[in-house]
């Protein structure tokens, strides 16, 4: 199968554009054609703004940092004039964004072209994209498996060669885990590095927007554009944005990388473990020093997360009252029935479950025992990382304990699904940055090759460090270059 432009990286397309071999319209047309040819089987896209994208491509200025580069957008980031359903029936076919999220404004100013809305777990709640209220998305490597979540459409579109790059969001691993499951790169920036304005909120103290790309170099290019202080998001950090590309010099000699003993215990799939161990050996061969460390409160991270995230979600989702937006039931007899029935009709099971849990942990008589307690344990978890980063520059682990699981395999056991987030959620609680890059393959029960991700975590605002390491890793391996074969 020949490569199309949609299979290329941002960096490769930029060379072709500058050499005059292709035009932005060629790229956009090729991505649209790839979607038409290949997405019906995978189901990553919810909608495509073809005409608008072609118009933008005609006007694109390729001298800009992302001039003429189309990017698929997770369906909870507002793009003016486009739908923003958050994968939910409550907004499906009834909501059109009236403004651009800050990340979209910045992408457009840098010349990028938002192209297509990609699927996700409803309101980003899930690890498999099965909780989408709109459609199922399949893993391009194995159509019987899930693509991961909640940014499953983002990862599947990049992996499948139907997007050059994508923007996702990560509240507990929702960029890194699907990137790992689909064999792509996924970067979760530090909390506050990227503005959340225009991102529909799930858990406001944990959410962060980031890129899903084919290489760490592409992730650095996008982060260069979207990072920075924003007057519309008071939690965005007023800290200088370095040129992340400059840190990608392949030099990781002497860097100290920690292996937390709590992340290398039983329960990790053997294929995942051997790929990750081989990846760590590669980092060692490149001159990094591998150091044993401990993050003693790791076992409490899942509990802490599912208290804080659901508490914040229950408050954030109160805005869906079917008054200002959202589908309303017909002829409710009073306002309470209006709320109860509209929300019952619009939200899916997992969203309801999390609203219930979040309301419970915040309710009178329970909030100290659960919510305040979890906030305190969150401090302990952050302190673990602060302590670890006095000894090491970054931390390495598997991104997830298993490869992509089968569609339907975990959908009846929420606790089991929550436990699958074990390696990613602590980074959100601590507010630090993390990246997942492909480090090998394992074999599924039905004999299909499934990608494995290596996770690198860095201190807050040290994206340059994790990007440098993952880029050096990619320069000496070719796992990230492998693409699923279309059946």
């Amino acid at each position, binding site marked *: 199968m020949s490569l199309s432009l949609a299979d290329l990286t941002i960096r490769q397309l930029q060379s072709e554009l500058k050499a005059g071999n292709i035009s932005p319209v060629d790229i956009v047309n090729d991505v649209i054609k790839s979607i038409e040819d290949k997405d019906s089987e995978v189901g990553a896209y919810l909608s495509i703004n073809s005409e608008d994208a072609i118009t933008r491509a005609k006007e694109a200025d390729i001298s800009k940092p992302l001039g003429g580069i189309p990017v698929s957008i997770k369906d909870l980031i507002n793009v003016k004039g486009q739908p923003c359903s958050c994968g939910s029936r409550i907004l499906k076919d009834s*909501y*059109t964004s*009236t*403004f651009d999220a800050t990340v979209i404004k910045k992408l457009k100013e840098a010349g990028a072209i938002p192209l297509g809305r990609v699927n996700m777990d409803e309101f980003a709640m899930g690890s498999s994209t099965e909780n989408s209220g709109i459609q199922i998305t399949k893993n391009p490597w194995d159509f019987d498996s899930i693509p991961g979540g909640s940014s499953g459409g983002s990862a599947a579109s990049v992996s499948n060669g139907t997007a050059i790059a994508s923007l996702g969001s990560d509240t507990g691993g929702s960029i890194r885990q699907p990137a790992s499951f689909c064999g792509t790169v996924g970067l979760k920036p*530090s*909390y*506050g590095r990227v503005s959340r304005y225009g991102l529909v909120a799930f858990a406001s*103290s944990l959410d962060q927007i980031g890129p899903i790309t084919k290489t760490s170099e592409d992730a650095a290019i996008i982060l260069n554009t979207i990072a920075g202080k924003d*007057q519309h998001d*008071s*939690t965005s*950090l007023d800290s200088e944005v370095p040129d992340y590309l400059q840190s990608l010099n392949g030099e990781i000699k002497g860097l100290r990388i920690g292996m937390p003993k709590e992340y290398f215990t039983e329960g990790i799939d053997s294929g995942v473990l051997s790929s990750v161990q081989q990846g760590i050996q590669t980092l060692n061969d490149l001159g990094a020093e591998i150091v044993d460390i401990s993050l003693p*409160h790791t*076992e*409490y991270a899942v*509990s*802490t997360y*599912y*208290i804080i995230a659901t508490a914040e979600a*229950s408050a954030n989702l109160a805005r869906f009252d079917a*008054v*200002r*937006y959202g*589908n*309303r039931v017909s002829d*409710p*007899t*009073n*306002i*309470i029935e*209006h*709320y*109860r*029935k509209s*929300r*019952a009709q619009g*939200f899916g099971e997992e969203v*309801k*479950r999390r*609203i*219930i*849990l979040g*309301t*419970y942990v915040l*309710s009178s008589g329970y909030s100290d025992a*659960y919510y305040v*307690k*979890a*906030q*305190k*344990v*969150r*401090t302990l978890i*952050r302190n673990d990382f602060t302590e670890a980063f006095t000894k090491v520059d970054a931390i390495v682990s598997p991104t997830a304990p298993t490869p992509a699981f089968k569609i339907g395999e975990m959908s009846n056991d*929420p*606790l089991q699904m929550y436990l699958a987030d074990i390696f990613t959620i602590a980074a*959100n*609680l601590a*507010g630090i940055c993390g990246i997942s890059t492909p480090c090998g393959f394992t074999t599924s029960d039905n004999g299909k090759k499934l990608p494995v991700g290596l996770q690198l975590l860095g201190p*807050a605002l040290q994206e340059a460090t994790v990007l440098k390491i993952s880029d050096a890793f990619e320069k000496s391996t070719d796992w990230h270059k492998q693409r699923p074969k279309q059946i």
Partner: protein
Amino acid sequence: MQDNNIDVNYVADLARLELTEDQCERFSGQLNKVIDFIKQLEELDTDSIDPMAHASPIYDVMRNDVSRPGLGSEIALLNSPMTSNNQFKVTRVVES
């Protein structure tokens, strides 16, 4: 199943969410399992630990009190399921 953990019906009422009987029963089972699990936090002594509401060390972000352009009523009403006289139309709130 420990049914002393969560009264799903009551909590759903607080959350303005109508659940079917079937959902109530299923959520009770599933959420009691989750709550039993998260009770592990009780093992930790956190008496001297400050709660952390937020990941970044920034507080009280201020800006100058100057007006900025807003959406305007036409655009603000664009996504509403029901409007009337250039306003959101809400289901009856007072008893008739």
